[in-house]
């Protein structure tokens, strides 16, 4: 493996690499590595996106063979569902193999990830952080797609529900011979795995407590420059509140979030509920996302701005909002370096009633949450 081009003076990065290497080297450190899975972990602060993602992937890959706690799977599944960086997605697939029992939901996410990164596949190695260039002395190269297919094979019977999709993928081809061989092996392993006992299920992830900070005084500014406090903007009726930033490069994340808010707006209008609910998204990147950018972005993605539907930025520090809602966002020198998918349903007093975190959501799901909220408000 060649030496890395890590710039001299990049102390934060070097210290972070050293810390992760120490954790990976010592047995029993899985809980400490799991603490590094959230994108807002302080270890990634100040790094560029590429550095932060590679570092997180390096930490993730150290979980292969560990006894992975159930709650760690949510972060891994988020990468498989929406990640674009082949190194990080491959690391997530590798780490899934650290689960005590193969999780049933993983196969569909792995297939989705294969389709998403197949045009950007790259050779990956996780033995060293700086293993950017393959060393033939370390054996044949392994690509990100090969890691995903190895995890499909490892899932065995838990991937049975996806076997037809795997066979169709194999028939369609378009893979290199090495990747195709891994796909063949996965199809064979899944086909040959003993059927699961009746009703075997992946254990549910532990529920996360909902944040309940008082955010009412935080000052916001909308896409037209109008200023309001969080309380003025959202209290008095239920609110669907998402987070995004206009420079997000992942079409599965922020652009999709805002586009789906637009679809939700049309659904609410069709049910004559558009005046009953606030639809809002607040940018993670308020210094860059000035009102005109918010307006242009929302308009391009199908939002019809009105009194109840707005994009917002904080005019002061973002930190009170980040800590108040326990947001999963980290920052590099100029902008966001990593973030989760985050959507909250607030009641009319601005309290978090439901949260959808780390996974894609759809309009029906949010409508159902709003209906639950309405039923609770009416009472038994």
């Amino acid at each position, binding site marked *: 493996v060649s030496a890395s081009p890590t710039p001299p003076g990049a102390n934060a990065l070097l210290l972070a690499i050293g810390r992760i290497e120490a954790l990976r080297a010592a047995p029993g450190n899985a809980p400490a590595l799991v603490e590094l899975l959230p994108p807002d972990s302080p270890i990634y602060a100040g790094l560029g996106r590429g550095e932060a993602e*590679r570092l997180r992937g390096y930490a993730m890959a150290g979980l292969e063979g560990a006894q992975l706690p159930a709650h760690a799977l949510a972060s891994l599944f988020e990468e498989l569902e929406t990640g674009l960086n082949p190194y990080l997605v491959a690391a997530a697939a590798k780490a899934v193999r650290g689960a005590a029992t193969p999780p049933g939901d993983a196969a569909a996410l792995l297939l989705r990830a294969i389709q998403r990164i197949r045009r950007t596949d790259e050779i990956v190695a996780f033995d060293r952080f700086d293993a950017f260039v393959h060393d033939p002395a370390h054996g044949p190269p392994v690509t990100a797609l090969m890691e995903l297919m190895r995890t499909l094979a490892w899932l065995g019977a838990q991937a049975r529900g996806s076997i037809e999709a795997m066979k169709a993928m194999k028939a369609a081809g378009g893979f290199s011979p090495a990747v195709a061989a891994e796909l063949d092996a996965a199809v064979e392993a899944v086909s040959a795995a003993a059927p699961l006992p009746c009703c075997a299920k992946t254990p549910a992830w532990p529920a996360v407590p909902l944040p309940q900070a008082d955010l009412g005084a935080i000052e916001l500014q909308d896409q037209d420059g109008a200023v309001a406090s969080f309380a003025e903007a959202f209290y008095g009726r239920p609110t669907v509140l998402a987070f995004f930033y206009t420079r997000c490069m992942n079409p599965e994340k922020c652009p999709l979030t805002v586009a789906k808010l637009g679809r939700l707006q049309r659904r609410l209008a069709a049910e004559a509920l558009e005046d009953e609910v606030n639809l809002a998204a607040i940018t993670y990147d308020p210094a860059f996302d000035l009102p005109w950018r918010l307006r242009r972005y929302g308009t391009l993605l199908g939002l019809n701005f009105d009194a109840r539907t707005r994009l917002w930025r904080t005019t002061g520090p973002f930190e009170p909002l980040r800590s108040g809602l326990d947001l999963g966002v980290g920052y590099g020198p100029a902008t966001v370096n990593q973030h989760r998918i985050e959507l909250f349903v607030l009641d009319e007093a601005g309290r978090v009633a439901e949260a959808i975190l780390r996974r894609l959501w759809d309009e029906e799901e949010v409508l159902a949450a709003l209906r639950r909220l309405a039923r609770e408000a009416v009472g038994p």
Partner: protein
Amino acid sequence: MSNPDDEDADEAIEEAAFDSGTVAALNAFGDTSRPPADRLDALRRISLAAFDAGRFQPHQATFMQMLRTAATDPDAALCATAIDILARYHDQFAQGLLLQGLQNPSAAAVPPEIALRLLSIDGHSSAGPIAQSILTGSGNPQVRAQAAYLLSSDPGAVALLTARMTDKAEHSAVRQASAISLHTLNGMAFSLAARNIVDDASDYPEIRATSRTGLALLPDNNVGGGDTV
């Protein structure tokens, strides 16, 4: 009307020709015993093939790996071309080489103005702090101008860009680059600086023209920027 079987056969032949041609070009590019000119020619052919992303995907991982190897090749042209292509993929290895070169110019694979231009392709990179230090410290105006362009994605650079844009002692290329970046970053800060320049008949015509054009192109609802932080 053509026979669908014939069409399938034609497609299969075309596919095989694409594949064998791509493999041959990859082999030539990776063959360090060949003259650099031949390898650069092979790289040009591979880059053309990569436009057909669907067909090229079985070769993508190998190509990226070969580019990373070539990025440290002793031949300067080959090395610079490989880094250029990798930078367009936001490749972390290439960004590391470019940052390293900016910090240690004697070991740089490409000149600093090229490194800054390539790093500016990725607005999420960690190049902001070094670009800020180059904008204040480099003696070469072309390099300072590229640093100013890179900072168009860094909201933390508003004050620095404003200072460079309004400094009459600064080189014209740096002032214009700073103005363009500030216009992108924060219209209100640009507007305040630009109005003063436009009104100052003693300032240079180039920067006054840039300021006037920038003011005309500001978005309609250019509000914000008067934040409490």
